[in-house]
């Protein structure tokens, strides 16, 4: 196979080519390219040719992913509701899932916590948990679908995000609501305004009729049944209404940013 490849690209040393390409990349890109690289290795082995080097393939894939964001935004129907299920179908135990173990999950003292509201809103006051608990709440039993492929049905109760955005006088023509969280390494995630205004998008305070446990994001998570799980931030500290795309923990590493269901 090696000899075949040399025959196909005479005079080009593949390893040197890649090393040169890596050198021209900025530090951050290089790190991601190495840790999260979209390996072409197996394909090269299979076809015996190496017509594209990995970094240009990665650039192309990023462009297609942006195109897919646009396609999904176009497909998104603000009135299409995620299917709901009877309580008997709730997955027990509902899985804890994060990029860290449960013992590393944020431990937030509810009495000290305040939700910070920033950006394009009329009222930037911070909200205590008691104040938030007084807002009207609704319950939903919906399917949480993880980017990994597994899914689980859960029961979430809280205030529709669109009601809260109205309450604080948010500019609902802005592009995103950007959440920052207390997870280690600083979790964050942008939510497009269309989805933020979806009737089932919820500021969640309860799971299974009980105060949201630490495992599922106490004191507050954002439940978005029209998005993959990683677009449902937990341990939320602040929300910012913004026109800027500020990226997100997983989005920056290559998960599709819209990731709508």
């Amino acid at each position: 196979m090696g000899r075949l490849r040399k025959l196909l690209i005479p005079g080009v040393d593949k390893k040197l080519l890649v090393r040169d390409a890596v050198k021209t990349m900025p530090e951050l890109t290089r790190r991601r390219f190495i840790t999260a690289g979209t390996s072409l290795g197996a394909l090269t082995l299979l076809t015996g040719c190496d017509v594209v080097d990995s970094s240009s393939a990665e650039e192309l894939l990023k462009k297609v992913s942006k195109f897919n964001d646009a396609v999904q935004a176009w497909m998104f129907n603000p009135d299409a509701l995620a299917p709901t299920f009877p309580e008997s179908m709730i997955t027990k135990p509902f899985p804890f899932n994060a990029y860290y173990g449960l013992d590393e999950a944020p431990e937030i003292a509810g009495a000290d916590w305040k939700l910070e509201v920033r950006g394009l809103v009329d009222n930037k006051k911070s909200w205590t948990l008691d104040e938030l608990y007084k807002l009207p709440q609704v319950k939903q039993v919906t399917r949480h679908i993880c980017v990994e492929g597994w899914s689980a049905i859960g029961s979430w109760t809280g205030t529709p995000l669109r009601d809260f955005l109205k309450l604080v006088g948010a500019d609902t023509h802005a592009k995103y609501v950007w959440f920052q969280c207390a997870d280690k390494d600083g979790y964050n995630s942008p939510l497009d305004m269309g989805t933020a205004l979806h009737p089932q998008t919820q500021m969640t305070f309860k799971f299974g009729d009980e105060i949201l446990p630490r495992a599922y994001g106490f004191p507050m998570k954002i439940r978005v049944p029209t998005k993959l799980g990683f677009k449902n931030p937990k341990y939320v500290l602040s929300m910012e209404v913004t026109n800027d795309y500020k990226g997100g923990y997983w989005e920056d590493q290559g998960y599709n940013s819209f990731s709508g269901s």
Partner: protein
Amino acid sequence: MTSLAVGDHQAETATPAKVIQPVWVRMVHWINAFAMILMIMSGWQIYNASPLFGFSFSSNITLGGWLGGALLWHFAAMWLLMVNGLIYLALGFATGRFRKKLLPITPAGVISDTKAALTFKLSHDDLSKYNSVQKLLYTGIIVVGVVIVLSGLSMWKPVQLHWLVSLFGGYDIARYVHFTCMALIVAFLVIHVALALLVPKSLRAMIIGR
């Protein structure tokens, strides 16, 4: 400019070899082969993130390096696969190729041709006519191709296309359907490639047309 070359050319056009595979078939075939391999290899990497069964695919045969990379490949190659597939279906129906080449399929024909194939008595003299086993496999793989795209779409958009998910009996079942279709395509691929190598002129027909 040699007269010899011109003479050769004339001789060639005077008795043209029969075109077995028209150019559009060859083009969509190889584009499909490329897209399919990208989809399968990236799909195996995605599967590894949450395996349905008690095994994972070796990273030597997967594409993408990790879940995020594999998803980028999968959701890019899907466009190639889908657009190419739709062109194939449209032309297959419009040109009458499906009707002429794939029909009729009778159980008796399939049984007798399978027997003939297994005893190496199946004739390959006229590659433009498919035998019953070929008809069955090629028709079957088109159906599998349609089902794998539909089950994939329902996993990608389980809310927007919830009616499609219901058609498969739910999100979790759609995952198994998607996996099963992949397994069928891989099985087809093994047989298809093995047979093409056994009858090399069929491979030549799919490359140069005759």
